[in-house]
């Protein structure tokens, strides 16, 4: 994929009780917004384990959006606050892996905030367009070369590029 045709892929984890409905609302209200987000409905933003975010980044996502209810409005009382704690620690750790802060974002969007969600997706898409692709598989995993049999030549190359 050339840089000029690059369109970021955003995996969106949307809370069933608010943000997923906000996305529905954005749809029924016929709002125009970026098509870059692939929504996944979860029962609560607090259900989004950090493994899921890492797996998305590893497997081809350029960014991950987690969307949940505003603090104080969680269907499960404080699931979204657990999300917030996890998210902040996760971002701090991802920085150590060289993953820019724009690539993982958390937004609050209630069921009536279709336009707020659409704006967040537009903004994030724009930010990721500027950052460029992540492509963890191509730029990291494949170059680390984990396949036992076929790869010996490549990893033995003494002048191999730094990842």
């Amino acid at each position, binding site marked *: 994929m050339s840089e000029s045709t690059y369109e970021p892929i955003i995996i969106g984890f949307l809370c069933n009780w608010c943000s997923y409905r906000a996305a529905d609302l954005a749809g029924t209200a016929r709002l125009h917004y970026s098509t870059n987000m692939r929504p996944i409905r979860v029962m609560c933003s607090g259900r989004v384990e950090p493994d899921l975010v890492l*797996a998305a980044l590893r497997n081809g996502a350029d960014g991950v959006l987690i969307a949940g209810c505003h603090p104080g409005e969680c269907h499960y009382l404080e699931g979204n*606050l657990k999300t*917030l*704690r996890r998210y902040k620690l996760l971002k*701090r*750790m991802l920085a150590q892996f060289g993953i820019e802060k724009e690539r993982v974002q958390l937004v609050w969007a209630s069921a009536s905030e279709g336009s707020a969600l659409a704006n967040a997706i537009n903004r994030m898409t724009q930010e990721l367009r500027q950052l460029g692709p992540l492509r963890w598989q191509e730029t*990291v995993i494949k170059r680390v070369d984990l396949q036992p049999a076929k790869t010996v030549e490549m990893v033995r190359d003494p002048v191999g590029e730094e*990842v």
Partner: protein
Amino acid sequence: MMGAERKFKLAMYWAASCGGCEISVLNIGERLLEVDAAFDVVFWPVAFDFKYSDLRAYPDGYIDLCLFNGAIVNSENEEIAHLLRQKSKLLVAFGSCASAGGIPALANLTTRSAIFQTVYLNNPSIDNPDQVLPEPTYSAQEGELQIPTFYPTVKKLEQVVEIDYVIPGCPPEADQIWQVLQSVISILQNGTPLPPKGAVLGAMDTAVCKECVLEKHEKQIARFYRPYEIIPEPGLCLLEQGLVCLGPATRGGCGALCPKVGIGCRGCYGPLDGVDDQGARILAALSSVISAGDPKEEEQEIERKIDAAIGTLVDPAGAFYRFGMAGSLLIRARNGGSR
């Protein structure tokens, strides 16, 4: 004793490792005599004077059991891993480095050139006026000399060759080693079926917390402490006291030795069954004990408290993936990471 029966062939190898795994094998004590009765050691660089040429001369599958410790950091490690795979019936990733990357794989948070800068140029104890860095080949008067190539990314054994079993731990506990050796001896002697390929041996399938004797209550902490910053209350869960402890996300089997003496679990026995990424799990566990999060508080106040607590964690990636970086989902940092 086995008398005149055929003795089995045992090998042990260290790739990028510290030697602690071999010490742990020796720690099985007088039971070594039983190992000696059942096995002939045919390759063990730390303890016996075998050469790589001896190993190459063995027929394929000659070694019955090979305990391979250490991560794959350079081309020599990888070459011997392939050779030992070829010569061994059972190849075991022994210890944290072979099974998950271990301490050497923390190098994956930085780059090879940054490591060389530090190790060969910038360390205060370095005297290297000609700025010499290791080169894989060197032309000397006598001809071309070669040393192994240092890889940009540290790998675990399974990422290089197929393995049969894993014995985790840094180092694996002597009693656990002995139990595994006993069952291997009995399997080899009696022809009983082997455990399923890829099984984790010498460990439990429950978390360290399960065998930890410290008293546990509901956890609500406002900040984390580094070990030198507090003297923990004896008998109480360390995580409750703000000490980073990887027990909730780490496989048990060690007897929870570290928490028992006031040091948080380092995570050396690796993730539990079905977990892809140990670091992500401990991240989830640790963030859930941060006390900030009363839904009645103002959002800014909640955020401030969370930021303050997280700010006291000095090196999250290094702490969460202390032994598991090579086995993690991301495997390494890109662009040299950021510190």
